[in-house]
């Protein structure tokens, strides 16, 4: 990048003109590779590019935005990162619903800061996706049109203040299990976003667990509230790891590419193993009669989630699917005039500056 003071590593994606990224598939158009292939790859045949890509993955190095990558790798990443980003944004709603009713000023501050972090996490992830050529605006349209998914867990309601704690403990705990390995995902910008997110998520899980612990030391009513909440969230939390590996057709390829680093079942087991002793310390019962220590495997055996419920929620038949999307659509539509005004103002200021330069 002659003439640039910023190293390529530091300025991914959008600072580079779109057409400079060879083979990039933007919805509706494919940038022809022959136009502006970067110098170092100009002479390389597609076969060599593919080999170079695979060798990079094989030695555990990262793929960066301007590297050549197979279309399917790019598409898989866009789908996964977008879904992850949408989950953060939709995930603001169940807890956000309780900010105005938080029962102490300390809890109010904690919850507001936490939901704010989720907006931040969505923002980091949309940014990672933008390095692949998919803009936040495009991805938002796909979400609002129901053409991209978000995590099913957020289609369940938050019905008591204990749910704020349970979401932190179980839902964020499951998310951390999924996300920590993603810090080493093969795509650089995604991994870097995940590092930042995981550091912040540890605050989320701890505040949730601490809230539940405090409530368990409170009144009998509060303890019942905690148990009832755990009963509702346990199984949906297990479903957050996705269907069993045998029924997850894309998993193998994602693992070969280093996008995913662990199978769904392995992560689910890891989550159960970490959570059981935490539940004991808390004094709540996990609602699974099949849950027991297996000395041979040195792991807990546990029951099978109701996968028909999982697929129903995925189809849009969860308790809150319609409500969550309607909320997002309304906020997006209500804010359109503000976004337009800021652009119009920036345009006028730029014109005035340009005019002044000519004087």
């Amino acid at each position: 990048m002659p003439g640039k003071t910023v190293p390529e590593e530091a300025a991914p994606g959008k600072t580079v003109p779109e057409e400079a990224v060879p083979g990039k598939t933007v919805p509706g158009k494919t940038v022809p590779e022959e136009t502006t292939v970067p110098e170092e790859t100009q002479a390389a045949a597609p076969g060599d590019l593919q080999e170079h890509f695979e060798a990079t993955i094989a030695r555990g190095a990262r793929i960066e935005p301007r590297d050549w990558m197979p279309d399917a790798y790019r598409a898989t990443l866009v789908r996964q990162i977008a879904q992850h980003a949408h989950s953060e944004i939709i995930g603001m709603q169940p807890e956000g619903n309780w900010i105005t009713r938080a029962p102490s000023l300390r809890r109010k501050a904690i919850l507001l800061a936490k939901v704010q972090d989720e907006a931040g996490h969505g923002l980091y992830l949309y940014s990672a996706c933008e390095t692949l050529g998919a803009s936040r605006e495009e991805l938002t349209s796909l979400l609002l049109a129901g053409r991209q998914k978000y995590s099913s867990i957020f289609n369940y309601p938050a019905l008591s203040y204990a749910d704020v704690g349970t979401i932190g403990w179980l839902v964020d705990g499951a998310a951390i299990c999924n996300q920590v390995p993603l810090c080493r995902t093969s795509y650089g910008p995604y991994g870097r976003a995940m590092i930042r997110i995981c550091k912040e998520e540890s605050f989320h899980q701890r505040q949730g667990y601490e809230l539940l612990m405090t409530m368990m030391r409170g009144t009998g009513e509060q303890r019942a509230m905690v148990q009832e909440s755990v009963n509702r969230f346990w199984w949906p939390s297990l479903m957050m790891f996705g269907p069993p590996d045998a029924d997850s057709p894309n998993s193998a390829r994602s693992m070969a590419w280093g996008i995913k680093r662990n199978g769904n079942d392995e992560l689910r087991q890891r989550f159960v193993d970490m959570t059981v002793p935490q539940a004991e310390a808390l004094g709540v019962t996990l609602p699974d009669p099949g849950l027991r220590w297996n000395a041979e495997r040195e792991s807990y055996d546990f029951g099978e989630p109701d996968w028909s419920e999982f697929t129903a929620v995925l189809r849009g038949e969860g308790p809150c699917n319609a409500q969550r999307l309607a909320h997002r659509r309304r906020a997006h539509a209500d804010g359109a005039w503000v976004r337009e005004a800021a652009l119009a103002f920036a345009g006028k200021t730029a014109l005035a500056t340009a005019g002044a330069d000519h004087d």
Partner: protein
Amino acid sequence: MTEWPLYEVFVRGKRGLNHVHVGSLHASDDQMAIRNARDVYTRRNEGVSIWVVRSDAITASSPDEKDPLFAPSGDKVYRHPTFYEIPDNVPHM
């Protein structure tokens, strides 16, 4: 097209260090980008100086703005995981 342009954000964490790329955000102009960067990327006392750059232009916050830009997050202890007392016998937290 109503999307604000994308900016890259660079933060200097301590005096004596380079600015490091921390992520991206959208803003309608340079000034909004600096302020958005403060709100999005320095909520935990992370930076002492921010650069934002759109394409080939770089804009830096001046050292004089340090106080109003960064002081407000100084007391947000609840953002830090160690603020929460979890007994030692609870594993994996």
